[in-house]
């Protein structure tokens, strides 16, 4: 009886997995077949790279990749800088108003940058950052989530290490840099993964503040590529989609274990 129900469960788990992966598999298959074969499901039809050729020539993908890469890098550096300092302040420095400010920061978890698009767009324009990568990245640098995470990580550092470093004559910044940052490495790694995968995939805000192929990230480029005036070609769109998800997807498949472990270890729960 239990063996039987176990089989049912395994079957359910596998079925769900197959369903879950099927959109990707179909698009992958369609990307390598002519449109007409793809929409008619000619399973035996020949494979072709034409769609990739068409898609590749259809937009400056390399530029988009570069933009996305620059964007996630800029954001990550900014976030590390800002959240390290703020997380440390909240974890280890006593100052008046700390708890109140911390609550303000936590509020930002709910004042989503996505919701404030109208005013943030005006702000970025005012700062002269419209259509720049910095302009896309800035609103995300002071991430409440990141500050919270760093605070938790720094709180777990034994106070003895802190004292020892101080006795050796380290100043505040020295202590932060030599003691806290190295010990929080797993948290940094996990946070970096979350941040990179979030901003690699972000769309609405970049859609609003980028205006030219020189700054446009992959997601916005893909959406424009996928919505031409007079109609779409499913196989070519599939090819473009495959191309644009490939780097992150391959990275994920290769580093899957580390990826998931990092999530788990950072205690993001």
């Amino acid at each position, binding site marked *: 009886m239990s063996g039987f129900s176990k089989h049912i469960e395994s079957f*359910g788990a596998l079925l769900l997995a197959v369903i879950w992966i*099927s959109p990707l598999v179909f698009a992958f298959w369609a990307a390598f077949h002519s449109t007409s074969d793809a929409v008619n499901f000619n399973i035996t039809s020949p494979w072709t790279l034409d769609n990739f050729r068409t898609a590749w020539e259809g937009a400056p993908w390399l530029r988009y990749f570069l933009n996305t890469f620059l964007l996630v890098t800029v954001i990550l550096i900014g976030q590390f800088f800002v959240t390290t300092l703020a997380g440390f302040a909240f974890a280890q420095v006593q100052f008046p108003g700390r708890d109140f400010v911390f609550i303000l920061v936590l509020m930002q978890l709910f004042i989503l940058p996505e*919701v404030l698009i109208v005013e943030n767009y005006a702000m970025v324009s005012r700062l002269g950052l419209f259509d720049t990568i910095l302009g896309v990245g800035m609103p995300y640098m002071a991430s409440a989530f990141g500050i919270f995470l760093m605070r938790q990580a720094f709180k777990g550092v034994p106070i003895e290490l802190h004292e020892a470093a101080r006795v050796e004559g380290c100043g505040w910044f020295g202590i932060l840099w030599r003691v806290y940052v190295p010990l929080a490495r797993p948290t940094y790694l996990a946070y970096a993964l979350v941040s990179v995968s979030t901003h690699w995939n972000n769309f*609405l805000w970049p859609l609003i503040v980028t205006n030219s192929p020189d700054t446009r990230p992959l997601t916005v480029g*893909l959406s424009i590529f996928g919505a031409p005036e007079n109609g779409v070609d*499913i196989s070519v769109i599939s090819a473009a989609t495959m191309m644009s998800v490939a780097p992150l997807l391959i990275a994920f498949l290769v580093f899957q274990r580390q990826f998931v472990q990092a*999530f788990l270890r950072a205690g993001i729960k």
Partner: protein
Amino acid sequence: MAEHVNIERRRQAIYGWILLSPAAILLTTFAFYPSLATLWSSLFSRETRRRPSEFVGGENYTDLFADPTFWKVVVNNLIYAGATIPISIAIALSMALWANSKIPARGFVRTAYFTPTVLPMIAAANLWLFFYTPGLGVLDQIGSLFGLPSINWLGQPETALWAVIIVTIWKEAGFFMIFYLAALQTIPEDLKEAADIEGASRWTYTRRIVLPLLMPTTLFIMVNALINSVKLIDHLFILTKGGPNDASKLILYYIWEMAFAFFDAPHAAAMTILVLVVLGVVAGVKFTILDKRTHYQ
């Protein structure tokens, strides 16, 4: 001595604020000030060639309340939240339980569950477009094998919103699964052994022991899913653009449309404020009631 403590305290305060200043400046520039500016601009009328902008008080809000599209969008978003939150949590939980148990091809199963998470929503929408397109799409092709008629998933008001919901669930369930997996691994093995000795069935063990222990994780995921139900709208740009007849339009999309397609920033601002109020209430509930009850953090 007292003086020394005083100096130390002052020094800490200065250090504290120096350390905080980058975050404080950025948060003020991109979160707090824009929130207030949004509130302010929601009280003024739109500037046009004929009429300069003027103070109108709550008129933009009453306009919204009189706008049937606004209510439709609100209801849509409630359905969107009401469907995506519980369903994706339930699926995520099953996924985690399966991925954590000894089943064949566990590596593949885990990967399959999690893969959608690393795809951009825009890419996911492109994949699903291929599924939904009437006549040409995968769903219709499968349906036609069984003699089912062609269904225009994205083109009918009854199905469009659900088509959008399915994509969202597909995208976020695997992400939530990770959190459950993390929580499951903190449950000590001896609990399971004890339950086995007691002769408790797997189902009883799951229901009486695992689920209660997962409660804090569930709450955390719930808040995340709630936030997602406001901000996960990217796929609308590809799949339906809110149509047909606004059947799949969600609030954030409507805000975008109002501001950047209709160039009506004041009404967009008023809507933004309403969303912020709702999110504020959620935040209040989370920080005061839930956090105390679950000892989470």
